């Protein structure tokens, strides 16, 4: 067995010598790289059917305390496709553009459509771009949104990223959509993905995210209003910490809801395969945050009833609006497909049935108390 030990030493040496071939940092030093923090995509002005790609590049500085403000460089270029524009942008800088830390993709409002899959393809195919990057719509244009540098932005951080993902900003008005999720929902039959819409104020020093866009095939995308965005987020994504203002006569109550759950099922109709109605049940828990009159804990049931009635009305209005526009951000169609054995025409049956479906909403608001004062 002498031979074995010799060959083992030889192999061990070979394994070790593999290290000698390595040169660290995948062959390019960190100071030879530029980190792209977000990408904006607009329709091109000069090229037909082209795109204008804008990159927000984080500029390196020695120490965080040296720099009072975050510093960014902006690169723009038009091209027939995203990949082509990015390739050309690489020739505009002296360092390599590193996309591995790119976390936000901002798309011009007009481009947020079902066919966006064709250009999103580039991002999915590239191995270094994260699929958990956030995607958002932009108004008036992706470039102008990228160039907003809010006063609240700290050095060495990007404000755009903090809005999404629930690590910093956790508002129920902010929808978070990941790249993989967008791809999944665009490709799936029976659900329309919803993207957050980023706007800016007139001065251009604030980012405002409280509306959202439903991705569909149409030319002019449907923008969900602030209220609808909140309902979408709270019902479907289970986000919490939001407030409801209800009015009844002279009474004004502001509810702080910290838990909301939505369940729904299809009500089968007699003699037909498609359901006639959707039975939706919503449970919300919370406390009263503000009121214009004296309240009494004993009358909580009364407030519950008032709140339930109010919420029900608003949810119904939201659902019917979506139905009229034949949009399906909740994925009712997906659920329909999921609860029946597959047939060839299952989705077309659903599409025909959806406009006539009736919504039956029951809302159960369970207030825990009137807050710390009565």
């Amino acid at each position, binding site marked *: 067995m002498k*031979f*074995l030990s010799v*060959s*083992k030493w030889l*192999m*061990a040496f*070979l*394994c070790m010598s*593999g290290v000698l*071939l390595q040169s660290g940092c*995948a*062959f*390019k030093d960190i100071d030879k790289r530029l980190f792209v923090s977000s990408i904006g995509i607009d329709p091109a002005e000069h090229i037909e059917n082209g795109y204008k790609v804008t990159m927000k590049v984080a500029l390196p500085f020695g120490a965080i305390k040296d720099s009072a403000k975050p510093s960014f460089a902006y690169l723009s270029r038009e091209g027939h496709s995203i990949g082509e524009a990015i390739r050309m942008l690489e020739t505009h800088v002296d360092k390599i553009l590193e996309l591995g830390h790119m976390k936000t993709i901002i798309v011009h409002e007009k481009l947020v459509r079902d066919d966006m899959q064709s250009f999103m393809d580039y991002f*999915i195919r590239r*191995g*270094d771009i*994260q*699929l*958990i990057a956030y995607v958002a719509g932009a108004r008036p244009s992706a470039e102008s949104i990228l160039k907003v540098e809010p006063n609240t932005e700290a050095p060495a951080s990007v404000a755009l990223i903090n809005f999404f*993902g*629930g*690590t910093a900003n956790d508002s129920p008005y902010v929808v978070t959509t*990941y790249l*993989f*999720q967008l*791809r*999944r*929902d665009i*490709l*799936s*039959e029976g659900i329309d993905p919803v993207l957050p819409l980023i706007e800016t104020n007139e001065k251009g020093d604030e980012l405002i995210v409280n509306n959202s866009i439903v991705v569909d095939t149409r030319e002019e995308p449907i923008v969900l209003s602030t209220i609808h965005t909140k309902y979408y987020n709270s019902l479907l994504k289970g986000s919490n910490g939001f407030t409801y203002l209800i009015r009844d006569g002279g009474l004004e109550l502001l509810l702080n809801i910290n838990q909301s759950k939505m369940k729904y099922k299809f009500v089968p109709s007699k003699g037909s395969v498609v359901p006639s109605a959707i039975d939706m049940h919503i449970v919300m828990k919370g406390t009263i945050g503000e009121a214009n009159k004296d309240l009494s804990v004993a009358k909580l049931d009364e407030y519950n009833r008032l709140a339930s009635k109010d919420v029900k009305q608003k949810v119904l209005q939201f659902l019917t609006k979506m139905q009229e526009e034949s949009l399906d951000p909740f*994925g009712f169609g*997906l*659920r329909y*497909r*999921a*609860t*029946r*054995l*597959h047939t060839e025409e299952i989705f077309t049956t659903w599409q025909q049935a959806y406009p006539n479906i009736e919504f039956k909403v029951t809302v159960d608001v369970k207030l825990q108390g009137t807050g710390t004062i009565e």
Partner: protein
Amino acid sequence: MSRIVYLLLISNMIANLIASSPRILFAKSEHGAIVTMIIALFFGVFMNWALITSFKAFPGKSLPQILTLYLSKWIAIPALFIFGVIWYVSGLQTLITYIDILLRFITPEMSIYLVIAMFIPVVTFGIIMQSRNILFTIELVFILALPVAAYYVIKLYFTEQVSWDQVAIAMTFIDNPPDYTVFSATTYLFVGAFDIIIFNSLLKKKMTFGIKQALIVFSLGVFMIFTTYFIPIGVLGFDQVENILYPWILTSDSIRMKFGVIERVIFIFLLLFLAIAFLNITIHWHVACKLFQSVFDIEKMKIKSREKISFMIVIVIFWLIAIYTTLKVTEYDLFLYSKYFFNSIPIVFIGLMIIMLVVNRRVKS
């Protein structure tokens, strides 16, 4: 059943999570994948039962030893040779897939020669270790990597990124007729325990395969099949999931650990699974190497350093084939050849069982 057998089984299941088998399953997602996976699950348990039972009479003996004792060499040599090829190819298949994944996702700028040059010596070092040391390595890697890998996989079930509606849609295709390719690809998940055809020489205790063992293998199978098939569908969506080359890479890239050490899970995930896959390649090639050696050894050659030479030849051939195929094979080829390879697995299994049946009869008579 010795714990080693379970570890071998699990290592094979995990290594296949990332390799070609999910893609083969997804390709047939609308053509009978579900029903076939259920059939294959039972068949997989049966396979393990048949294997353990047939080796029951020979504690401490490997397959080459058994065959030379009880069968004529005209049957034993070709059979061992075929098994050797099968084991080598299964290691090779994993190797090529992982080199491809490494190049695509971890070090895109690295030259393929360098990656091969790093992989093959390490694997070879594993092959020339003694079988006993390989078993120790298995245990070591499992203690280090498996808890974390299990954590990530179980974490997947509870993330909000998984859409269970999509999973349910995949299940609505349950009424389709079964498909052979899916059957063989799923069956392959269960062949890990077959490595004991060599490692049995170290397992001196008599093994049993009763209800308890069957239940363990069954539940392992259920968990792995469910994870392999349904979790990527939940994350990536059912429609057009078959268009993705490495479903599990994209799935792990889609998982976000909000407050994890790294928000982007893919890097930890890949490294962990790489460790286990590495182990898997080593085990398979070790078995293949032993089988080939026994083929050339079977007639006591008169040359002095017979072991040395057979070792050398086998390893050089392993290297040449591995380097050649890794450079040549395209993604399409890999998919196609993996399919052929998987398709041959049930046949090879039946062959092995027939041989063991004959051997067992001869022992009794």
